[in-house]
């Protein structure tokens, strides 16, 4: 099923949660809504689910207006950040709930319900927990049960609100891969909300980056990482060095000194130079276009992270290959390999 949002606006009092959002989700897609807290991503998800109503705009499911149907009629599977399992029911009854509350004329028989629940518990690999109560499960298990419960009604759309938000780092990583595999096998149009860029980039087919109630960029994980459309996206995704620069007379100036880099379409005026940490090449003191002294070095993983105090005043952190020896006090020259200049300070 395709989902389309057109000009969706939603305010909570004076706070504008969504400020004109347009989005199309293709059938069978796995989409991530990524943004900092307060960016409106959860509000958008809740509006699609029918748990919240927009002040203006449209939501279309397969081209049909979804707003004249409530949450109950939308047939949307929703997985909550804190699971929202029914504490007084065991795992089996939690998963069976959606089947038991169906209108009598389409309700399945007890045997059919049992078979379906068994199938779902097998799918989330937790069939051995059927008799337990939610409080006896770990966070990861609860999340998978919540997912099984949402899938029981054979939803046309699956929505997940920060599905791994409350889990520890290791379990998150496992569940990420598991979710991708699961989506592949059930192939339901799915949207998940996250503030974790790694999660979004690793799991989703497409990533929607949101900030302050607006969509900043929609694209594949490599699109949003390699070609950020806005300063916000560049700053939010991946780790970037940001330097306030001035574009005048076709040259980029840092603190009044021209830099040896092309303007590349940056508009004249106060701007910001964005460089990924690993895209800042490090060389001898007389090379490059930026100069400074190493003030701190940490080595871990495949790179070493060096803190460099620029002669222009700011301090930046760069990632350098480990085979290049860096010591505190070394004077170095720097040159950005890839960079972007966005208007605004």
């Amino acid at each position, binding site marked *: 099923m395709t989902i389309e949002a057109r000009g969706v606006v939603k305010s909570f009092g004076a706070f504008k949660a969504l400020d004109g959002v347009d989005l199309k989700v293709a059938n069978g897609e796995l989409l991530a809504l990524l943004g900092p807290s307060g960016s409106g991503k959860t509000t958008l998800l809740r509006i699609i*689910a029918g748990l919240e109503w927009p002040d203006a705009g449209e939501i279309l499911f397969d081209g049909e207006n979804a707003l004249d149907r409530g949450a109950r009629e939308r*047939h949307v*599977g929703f997985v909550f950040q804190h699971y929202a399992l029914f504490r007084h029911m065991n795992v089996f009854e939690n998963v069976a709930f959606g089947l*038991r509350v169906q209108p009598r004329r389409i309700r399945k028989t007890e045997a059919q319900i049992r078979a379906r629940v068994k199938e779902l518990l097998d799918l989330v690999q937790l069939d051995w927990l059927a008799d337990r*109560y939610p409080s006896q499960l770990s966070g990861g298990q609860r999340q998978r049960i919540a997912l099984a*419960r949402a899938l029981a009604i054979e939803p046309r759309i699956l929505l997940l609100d920060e599905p791994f938000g409350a889990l520890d780092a290791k379990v998150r990583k496992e569940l990420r891969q598991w979710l991708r595999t699961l989506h592949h096998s059930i192939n339901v149009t799915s949207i998940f909300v996250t503030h974790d860029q790694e999660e979004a980039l690793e799991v989703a087919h497409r990533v929607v980056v949101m900030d302050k109630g607006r969509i900043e960029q929609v694209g594949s994980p490599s699109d949003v990482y390699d070609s950020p459309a806005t300063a916000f996206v560049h700053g939010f995704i991946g780790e970037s060095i940001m330097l306030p620069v001035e574009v005048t007379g076709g040259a980029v100036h840092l603190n009044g000194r021209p830099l040896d880099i092309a303007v590349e379409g940056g508009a004249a005026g106060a701007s910001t130079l964005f460089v990924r940490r690993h895209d800042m090449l490090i060389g001898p003191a007389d090379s490059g276009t930026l100069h400074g002294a190493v003030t701190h070095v940490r080595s871990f993983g495949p790179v070493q992270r060096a803190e460099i105090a620029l002669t222009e005043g700011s301090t930046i952190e760069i990632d350098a290959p480990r085979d290049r020896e860096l010591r505190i006090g070394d004077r170095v020259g720097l040159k950005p390999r890839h960079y972007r200049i966005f208007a605004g300070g």
Partner: protein
Amino acid sequence: MSVLAPRRSTLPGFGLTMGLTLTWLSLIVLIPLAGLFVRSTDLSLAQFWDIVTSRRTLSALKISFGLSFAAACVNLVMGTIVVWALVRYRFPGRRLFDAIVDVPFALPTAVAGVALTALFAQKGWLGAPLAAMGIKVAFTPLGIFIAMIFIGIPFVVRTVQPVLIDLDPEIEEAAASLGASRWHIVTKVILPSLTPALLTGFALAFARAVGEYGSVIFIAGNLPNVSEIAPLLIVIRLSEFRYADATAIAVVMLVVAFVIIFAVNRLQRWAQSQAST
């Protein structure tokens, strides 16, 4: 103590608190109750049996327990509705209503009794229209029933309120997105989550109504066998210096009340284990 408590507990003070608890409960509750039982042994078994099976005693016990049970049932239903409105909706005067719920706690019961009697007497504000319909409230068992509802309502409201406030709205949203109707959400999700608190509130309201004296005797009319509650009968026997009779009735009340509250307690434990094992 080392037998009862693990030798090195992470929660120290078991011996001290347990000792204080036992001493205190003995002084305040157990010794007076034991005195009651001892006093009743002044009677032979046959005498005891005669007193508690006399028509007047049985009627009084039936009125006390029967009406208390009925009043607790009404409070359970109405209290739940009141809690729902107070917790779930924002309306003008909500805080005022919330405060009013506590009035039966604070009001001297005799004052409540006099007020209710004035209200429901044949010339009272409510009594007059009811009398016109042929319903007599004051000086009948119906009056007792109303007084018991009055004093019991805050117990249900105050025990259920915090639990309903803590009930995560996401639970209801989850149920709705799974296709549950409003009716299913209330009966299958909300009420089962509230059950332990509802049972506690019911038990408290019931216990309070059984023990209630002040407000009831004003409105009851106190006709033997018709509208005489057991606590009043005890007081009457005391004023007649028939102490043994009084204690015999008291012992029966005590045992019945204890059995009922114990049963509700077990039920509540069971409900709680269903809710959050």
